[in-house]
């Protein structure tokens, strides 16, 4: 429970953090809230040579909006995402889910950018952001930025599109419209634990039926996953198509077995929870 030795630097700006990263090389890690990285370091699953602390860069904590998007600074705490009136109005799925993470202490320290950059397939926010078709702004040396859509961002188990000398600085989320219903269901055996399986669903309602649906899965593979077969089956469908569509949820997934649940049970849960989430997103008949 004691981490291996590491250097520690506090960055006072994104530029400063980038120069520190460049100086330490690829074995350095960024530290934001530290609620995923520090436990891994204590268990020595992670042994970074240096931590560059970007958790004190005030300029990374903001919630703003433009016409179609909400823009969230990567350093914004889960607590602030959960309580932001802008996010509540424009993307209630995101504010709701931020309130499910850990406990109040965790939510006051952990950041949305940290959760995304950590790339843990058992985390809730990456799944929700994948379902929302969010975009991630990466800032590199000299302040150059590139924008990566969520669908291209999660590359593997704890692996993302962020380059060794890049920092995730902003999350852009398209606003949900009045015809959008949403749900996030998180199944765990005990309070405050990681999801055994989680499901995010967004349904565009159309004449009482489903216009289109976006469905994403937590902890059903090495990354958060879109349930594409389910989405295709639901496009333009009526409510009674939900059970058959949900049954396709396990397609393309590769869940693991652990002490909480076996892979077969996870596949079963994905089916059950997708059905429930889509029903909830569609709303009452």
């Amino acid at each position, binding site marked *: *429970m*004691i981490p291996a030795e590491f250097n520690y630097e506090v960055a006072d700006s994104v530029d400063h953090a980038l120069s520190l990263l460049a100086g330490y090389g690829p074995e350095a890690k960024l530290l934001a809230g530290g609620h995923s990285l520090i436990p891994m370091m204590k268990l020595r699953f992670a042994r970074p040579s240096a931590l560059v602390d970007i958790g004190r860069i005030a300029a990374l904590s903001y919630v703003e909006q433009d016409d179609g998007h909400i823009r969230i600074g990567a350093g914004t705490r889960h607590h602030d995402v959960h309580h932001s009136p802008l996010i509540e109005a424009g993307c209630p799925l995101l504010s709701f889910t931020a309130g499910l993470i850990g406990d109040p202490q965790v939510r006051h320290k952990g950041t949305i950018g940290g959760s995304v950059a950590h790339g843990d397939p058992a985390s809730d926010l990456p799944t929700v952001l994948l379902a929302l078709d969010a975009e991630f702004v990466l800032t590199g040396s000299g302040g150059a930025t590139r924008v990566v859509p969520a669908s291209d961002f999660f590359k593997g188990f704890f692996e993302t599109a962020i380059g060794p000398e890049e920092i995730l600085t902003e999350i852009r989320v398209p606003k949900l419209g009045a015809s959008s219903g949403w749900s996030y269901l998180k*199944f765990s*055996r*005990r*309070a405050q634990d990681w999801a055994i399986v989680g499901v995010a669903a967004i349904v565009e309602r159309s004449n009482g039926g489903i216009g289109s649906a976006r469905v994403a899965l937590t902890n059903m593979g090495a990354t958060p996953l879109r349930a594409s077969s389910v989405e295709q089956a639901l496009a333009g469908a009526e409510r009674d198509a939900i059970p058959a569509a949900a049954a396709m949820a396990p397609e393309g997934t590769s869940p693991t077995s652990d*002490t909480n*649940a*076996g892979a*077969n*049970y996870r596949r*079963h*849960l994905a089916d*059950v*929870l997708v059905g*429930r989430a889509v029903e909830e997103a569609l709303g009452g008949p």
Partner: protein
Amino acid sequence: MTTLSRTVGAPVNRVEGKAKVTGEARYAAEFPLTRLAYGWVVQATIARGRVLSVEEEAGMRMPGVLAVITHGNAPRLQVVDDGELLVLQDEQVHYRGQTVALVVASTLEQARAAADALRVSYAAEPHDVLLSADHPRLYAPDHVNPNYPTDTLTGDVEAGMARAEVTVDETYSTPAEHNNPMEPHSSTAQWDGDRLTVYDSNQGATRVHQQLAQVFGLDRSTVRVLSEHVGGGFGSKGSARPQTVLAAMAARMLDRPVRVTLSRQQQFSMVGYRTPTIQRVRLGADRSGRLAALDHEVFEQTSTLYEFAEQTALFSRVMYATPNLRTRHRLVALDVPTPRWMRAPGEAPGSFALESAMDELAEACAVDPIELRVRNDAAVEPEGGRPFSSRNLVACLSEGASRFGWADRDPRPATRRDGRWLIGTGVAASTYPARSAPSTASVSAEANGAFVVRVTAADIGTGARTALTQVAADELGVPLERVDVRIGDSDYGPAMIAGGSMGMASWSWAVVKACRQLRADIDEHGGVPDGGLVARADTADDIAAQANLARHGFGAQFAEVRVDVDTGEIRVPRLLGVFAVGRIINAKTARSQLIGGMTWGLSMALFEESVMDAEFGDYLNHDLAGYHVAANADVQGIDVSWLDEHDDQLNPLGVKGIGEIGIVGTAAAIANAVYHATGHRQRHLPIRPDRVLSP
């Protein structure tokens, strides 16, 4: 002296409550000593083999390190039965996690860092860590814990089964489970010449003091063990554990006090756990459910260091009348840590199997499960035929049925639904032995009017100190405030541990006897003389003179569950326990203890499971993130009550002991309720959601 209103039975607050919540109460790891050094245990990373070398010199060069103790330089210990105490005596590795070195340093952090860096090389051998019912090395131990026969047979089970009109023949299993008291195991040892003083977290200072004297070859009078406050034990502190010997060994080598505290992870290998069990139960009955035969066969594990044979089938020797009764225990010594006492050893897993099987029999006979138990109630102890000192199982069942609302129960499974939740109810019986063990106590009348009771009792969070204060106050006829009960010091004389639900029955007897003697002495003196008076008592002769009776507490457990039809998630909105456990000394702490026991039972039913990693021979979920003990969010309604039971064949107060009966039967009641809700039997614990869905 005037006689005041009695306090025994009253809901008295804990006398040390304020000291505990303000932090004034000191636990074993909290005693400040000058020149205190800290030891950190280095554990084997193989499950079987030999230590080839330890790089002691490199370890000694780490900052702050005072000693690296290994089998190469450790002093020789006296051979004792418990091989787990013979630490660092040879190079053999008997299980993954066994002590292979102790690093001692000036600070805890330095000790831990050096222990972490210490290089140990091994010659590993293939290990065998998995229990099975057909393991080729299964054997019949000489006896089962603590000294019951391994096998028993009354009548002819096969003939009874052959004659039976209805039979049940099923195999049940329970996993390895770890005790996990809140306070870690910790020992601080200090030598003064040949006198050894140890601040220790244990369930009984007498036993630890005896073991330390044995292992170091000391006269008992030179060893003192102090354990004033203890933060739980659940069996894992019932006798000395390796850290106590290590602390004393290191303190002697360094000639300064040494503290060894185990981490949560270390407690998953070094201090005991409940063996996994595989249990085959066969029941034969006539159509009305009357038992013609009961056969309970148990398979379980021990280590290669010390034989511990859990008395799992003992439950079946006590519960139901049958002409043909057989119980058997088979053991295999694996390359695993030594299993030990944990939360009603024997009865807890044994009751899960038999009380589940009884529910299956009730269904097969179409008899209500309560009525089935009433029909099979035993007039004498089924194995051996001794009369009971008291047995009020039927009264517990009927009182429970009335409080729980059992009368309207529809026995058909899988027929009650509230949205996606299936609802079911279940019942199970419980029992636990009501024994007393020899203890001593003294009580002194001080010139200032106070009374001081000294007894080597242990209050492991149960409220024992408070209950003994009530007992002494009543016997002396004085208010509670005039009685000072001092416990947890081996210098007070030998006494029973807080274990086997025997603590209060044993200590209260000695305290009552000493108080009565003191009152007689005071009367004889015509008052308390200026120098005060002391009376001592020893109950050894009284206990030896007891009639040969079957002494047990009994209880009835009821559960209501809700099972999500799609996910298999289980909620337990209601648990009810009704117990016949003799006299209750303190209504408040007793209620807490019984609720705690039932919470253990819920935890056993749904959550607790130590998962063996067969490749490495280690319990892989060895922390409280991976090993879930039921927490507030898991527990909904728990209701506890007890019958007003008077049994004058136990001990002066008629105490049966309540430490363990709360867990007995709870898991079966929940499993039976899950069956009633879903129609799928749950014969393997814990009842995980995936098991609910895949019958």
